[in-house]
């Protein structure tokens, strides 16, 4: 473990000392308290504190007097003063005397956290923290990004090569391929990894909601906004913003987005304060952006701004080698969550999973395994546990089956073969009459020797 930062809270009110004590203790600080200036000074002389939170008005030595004396001992000491009433003269006096900042009681928790963090960062004490973070690197890896296939190894290579730069990245791939996980992989391998990655699903929100979501809003800026809210761009400061389904944003939002990406500053909705934020942009889409640009539905300038470095995630049907790994991963995940003893998958079920076309990609596979584990009765996942209506026919959609007619042909043939060409039984299963079945057999020129 790295060194915990030491904080000294000086306030004559026991209740305030206790509140702040608990607040900072939970936040991983080593906390000490003093009930007056004299005690605080004695403690400060004996032990080294990284930061002091001092009440201005105390009996005996005032907060300002304590500030002066502490500064005589260490001119770099970080002191934050606490006042009951905010006033300009108070602030000027405090800051003139070397206080880092001052807060007015009661203080917004977010503001208190921000001021203390800012103070400590200024003194570069965060280096310790970063070392601590390096040690626990492993915990922030997206361990659910699974795949050892050649195609996925190529994706990883791209991720690692672009992560260390601050380049804007666009991730393309079908729905359910794991674009968000790849975005996360880029983020956690970058120097921004100690700050959050903020995901916004642009397709899920209306224009006005998206605006408020991205830029935040001030209290009272619209009916119902009883509290202010910071936007996603603000929250992504020093981190990454991941804009999913970027192709679905409105023309107005495209303009706003272009502006904020270029200037890295904006106003909250209903606010005048200019907010600055240092963020990296990663976007994702499964839409053909180039066609949207041609059709005039997506701004060309925004397209070029976003389309700097592209990572394409292959669909699951193009990396079937990863299916066993993924299946095992999901079995492990759901057996823990459901408290089930399912450990493996039967050969038949795995064969089926390997051959299925997976239009919904990894997400569909995950859902299939989850469903199979809910309905399954044995320690293995069986074919009949899988959620596909056609599973008993071992109906595999290969790459050569692309048209509806080809699919119908293969389906009918499979059902016929499974029922040893018993026409009545097959027609019953297919829920068509025998004449229709004969017509289909003729149409597709099916025979008993076909497979």
């Amino acid at each position, binding site marked *: 473990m790295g060194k915990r930062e030491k904080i000294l809270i000086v306030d004559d*009110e026991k*209740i*305030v000392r*206790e*509140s*702040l004590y*608990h*607040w900072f*203790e*939970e*936040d*991983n600080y080593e906390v000490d308290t003093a009930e007056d200036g004299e005690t605080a000074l004695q403690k400060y002389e004996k032990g080294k504190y990284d930061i002091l939170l001092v009440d201005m008005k105390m009996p005996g030595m005032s907060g300002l007097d304590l500030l002066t004396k502490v500064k005589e001992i260490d001119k770099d000491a970080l002191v934050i003063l*606490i006042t009951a009433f905010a006033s300009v003269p108070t602030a000027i006096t405090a800051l003139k005397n070397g206080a880092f900042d001052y807060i007015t*009681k*009661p*203080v*917004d*928790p*977010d503001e*208190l*956290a921000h001021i203390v963090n800012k103070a400590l960062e200024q003194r570069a004490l965060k280096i310790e*923290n970063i070392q*601590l*973070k390096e040690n*626990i690197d*492993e*915990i*922030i890896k997206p361990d659910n990004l699974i795949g050892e296939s050649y195609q996925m190894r190529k994706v990883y290579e791209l991720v690692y090569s672009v992560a260390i730069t601050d380049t804007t990245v666009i991730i393309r791939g079908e729905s359910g391929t794991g674009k968000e996980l790849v975005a996360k992989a880029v983020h956690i391998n970058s120097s921004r990894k*100690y*700050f*959050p*990655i*903020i995901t916004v699903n642009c397709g899920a929100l209306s224009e006005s*909601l998206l605006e*408020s979501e991205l830029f935040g809003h001030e209290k009272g800026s*619209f*009916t*119902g*906004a*009883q*509290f202010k*809210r*910071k936007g996603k761009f*603000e*929250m992504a400061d020093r981190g990454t913003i991941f804009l999913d389904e970027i192709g679905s944003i409105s023309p107005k939002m495209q303009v706003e987005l272009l502006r904020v990406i270029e200037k890295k500053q904006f106003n909250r909705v209903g606010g005048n304060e200019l907010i600055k934020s240092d963020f990296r942009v990663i976007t994702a889409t499964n839409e053909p952006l180039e066609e949207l640009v041609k059709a005039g539905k997506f701004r060309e300038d925004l397209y070029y701004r976003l389309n700097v470095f592209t990572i394409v995630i292959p669909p699951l049907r193009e990396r079937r080698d990863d299916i066993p790994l993924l299946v095992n991963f999901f079995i492990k*995940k759901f057996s*823990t*969550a459901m*408290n089930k003893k399912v450990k493996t998958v039967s050969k038949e079920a795995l064969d089926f999973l390997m051959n299925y076309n997976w239009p919904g990609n990894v997400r569909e596979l995950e859902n299939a395994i989850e469903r199979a584990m809910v309905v399954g009765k044995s320690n293995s996942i069986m074919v009949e546990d899988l959620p596909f209506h056609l599973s008993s026919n071992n109906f595999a959609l290969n790459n050569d089956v692309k048209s509806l007619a080809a699919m119908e042909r293969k389906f009918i043939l499979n059902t016929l073969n499974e029922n040893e060409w018993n026409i009545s039984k097959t027609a019953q299963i297919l829920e068509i009459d025998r004449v229709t079945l004969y017509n289909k057999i003729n149409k597709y020129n099916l025979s008993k020797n076909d497979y």
Partner: protein
Amino acid sequence: MDIYLAPLRFYNTLLLQNLITELSKRFSAKIRVIDLDINLDDFFSIDRKQYFSTQIIAEAIKLTDNIDGKVIMLTDVDIFVPVLTFIFGEAQLNGKHALLSVCRLHEEFYSGISNDNLLLERTIKEFLHELGHCYGLRHCIDWDCVMHSSPGIEEVDIKGSSFCRNCISKIEGYKY
């Protein structure tokens, strides 16, 4: 060790039910609901129009001597500790009691639009967070961990909804 939920002026039974269902999936411990005879009016601050969290916990300690387990109180009123304008919750670090307010977890206070799913998600996160403190966990630097600090609603929404590998080892009977 069982987990006791004590609703205090908390009337959203559907949320309570959904929370219990979710917790039951995650913990091998039994999740029980108990009534605590606490009159919240005794802890109301007329100046702040909020309820003093630390004092409510102190009262709960007196009433739950015979209970072996974690006692997490759940309320819909707005709570505070001196110095701070509000808190989502307060817990005894490595202790038995915590108090969670869902008052400021309601989406309608921010966007004007009610969202029950989001309320449940936020409640689960903050419940696990306060419970984590009761198991001795301090704030975690991993944004995917529910123990990441959340001084505002934005952080509640950003952070993960489960414990990271480091923190999970300290939580008794946590399944995933």
